[in-house]
């Protein structure tokens, strides 16, 4: 067992964690911003934009991967521009891992942030306005802190989703060992080779991470001030 652990290529763990962290940071920034923005829109606009932003959550990840490939392929305008002018390669690269994980886990962050914002007493916002506070100040000093527990648990869930992403990642970034080979891709690969021991080991790693994440979540929601309801 020790031999096995020593001989194991740990790069998938590093890649998954790195991807997860960067994607989560991006999701956090854009997800809360999008949620904050949509709260101020009219019902009609809200319904349309909301549906679009949530789409990756309900689409099969491979379908999202398909669109991402279309967008970032080096034979197409966006991909071509990025490569020619900025020397950025998305397809078959680590950046692809991040973008795939970001797109797939974004709705989770957005939805949770939105739900958290909806729980914030509207009178707090009205009060801020009648007190002459700017919308920015109200958002960062009043709404955001009040929504913190919901946003925190949303962030943790987003991270969990991001490190486990498989479908879109395999299509956009591929499975290049040491570069884009994430844990979930490694598990699929070694299973194909019939190596159930290595697969089981990685499953174990994933389970430990998942358990820790859920534990953190529960601690966060348990601490959110309200008395936990016990039946």
């Amino acid at each position, binding site marked *: 067992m020790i031999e096995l652990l020593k001989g194991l290529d740990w790069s998938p763990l590093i890649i998954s964690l790195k991807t997860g962290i960067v994607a989560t940071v991006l999701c956090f920034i854009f997800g809360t911003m999008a949620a904050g923005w949509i709260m101020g829109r009219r019902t009609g606009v809200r319904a349309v934009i909301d549906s679009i932003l949530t789409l990756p959550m309900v689409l099969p990840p491979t379908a999202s991967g398909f669109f991402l490939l279309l967008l970032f392929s080096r034979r197409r305008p966006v991909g071509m521009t990025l490569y020619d002018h900025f020397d950025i390669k998305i397809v078959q690269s680590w950046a692809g891992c991040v973008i795939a994980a970001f797109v797939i886990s974004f709705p989770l962050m957005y939805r949770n942030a939105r739900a958290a914002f909806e729980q914030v007493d509207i009178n*707090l916002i*009205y*009060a*801020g306005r*009648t*007190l002459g506070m700017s919308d920015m100040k109200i958002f960062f000093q*009043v709404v955001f*802190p009040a929504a913190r527990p919901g946003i925190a648990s949303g962030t943790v869930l987003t991270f969990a989703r991001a490190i486990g992403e498989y479908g879109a990642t395999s299509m956009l970034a591929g499975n290049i060992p040491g570069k884009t080979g994430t844990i979930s891709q490694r598990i699929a690969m070694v299973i194909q080779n019939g190596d159930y021991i290595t697969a089981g080991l990685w499953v174990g790693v994933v389970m430990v991470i998942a358990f820790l994440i859920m534990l953190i979540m529960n601690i966060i929601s348990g601490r959110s001030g309200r008395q936990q309801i016990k039946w």
Partner: protein
Amino acid sequence: MVIQAEFKQKYDNFTLDISLKSRSLRLGILGGSGAGKSMTLKMLAGIMTPQKGFLSMDDRVLLDTGRRINVSPRKRRIGYLFQNYALFPNMTVEENIGAGIPGRGQEKKKTVSELITRFHLTGLEGQIPSELSGGQQQRVALARILACQPEMILLDEPFSALDGHLKDRMQRELLMQLEDYPGPVYMVSHSRDEIYRFSDEIIILDEGKIISQGRKAEVFAKPASIKAAALTGCKNFSRATRISDHSFRADSWGVLVSTSCTLPDRFTHIGYRAHDFIPVWGEDSDKTVPFRLERIDDLPFERNYYIRPAVRGDNEEDLISWFVQRDLCGLLEEKGLPDYLKLDEEKILYFDE
């Protein structure tokens, strides 16, 4: 300061149509739930925008939908005290009070600390709102509003969530704290006691419309309509037929009334407050209702008698209410229940509906 406001807002099941002009410094808006009180206040503050409307304070136009003027709430300089105070839960007392003051310099610090002293919040600077009592929260909310030096303050049912004893105390406190505030203060409430205690001028709202406006004594003494009278606490109404300049019949009660003063030219209904009946033992005279007791409600400080009128019906609302203060109940126990209830002609309200 003259406040002039006109708000029109249509929903499927509710229409607000308000036009008001007032110079009063303490204006109370009385109305039942769903009358549009809170909406009116929110439109004054700019939190809600009516489909059509106008609002000005003296020469300052804050809203004119015709000219596409709509000053944002943060520039209106109108303070708003919310029912639950809407203190920012994550901020300390100090931060809450300072929230609306721009900048962070010495000036701001000074204003905040002055308000903390003035509102007896010394020692609580670092507490967050959930650690404060209701009274302290109210003081913080008021201090936070005054920190912005508003030109007008709106109070949105500030006491409706409190129980009786606390309500009285908080109300007295609020009145005291606002005593030297020079601008207009408008309060909405469904409680006539609160409104009466607070206001110089009263507006009565019903189903989105102003049904009565005037000095408080007038509005309570001479309500303009049955609805307005009911909102001021009048319990008894009867259809009425005018017979001559000095007599009429209260049809719903089957009572003939002759008066020494001249009756209004036209009226269709009369109203009579439950506290104003005079008990009569012995002989029948005019202006009297036979005392046919239906039911007694015993309350802590008064006793409510419900009397079935001679004429009509089994409906609960046809019963005549007579409210007797506790100290008079002794007399009633001694002499027994009266034979008649007499109307005092000075206290009869006349309505032309």
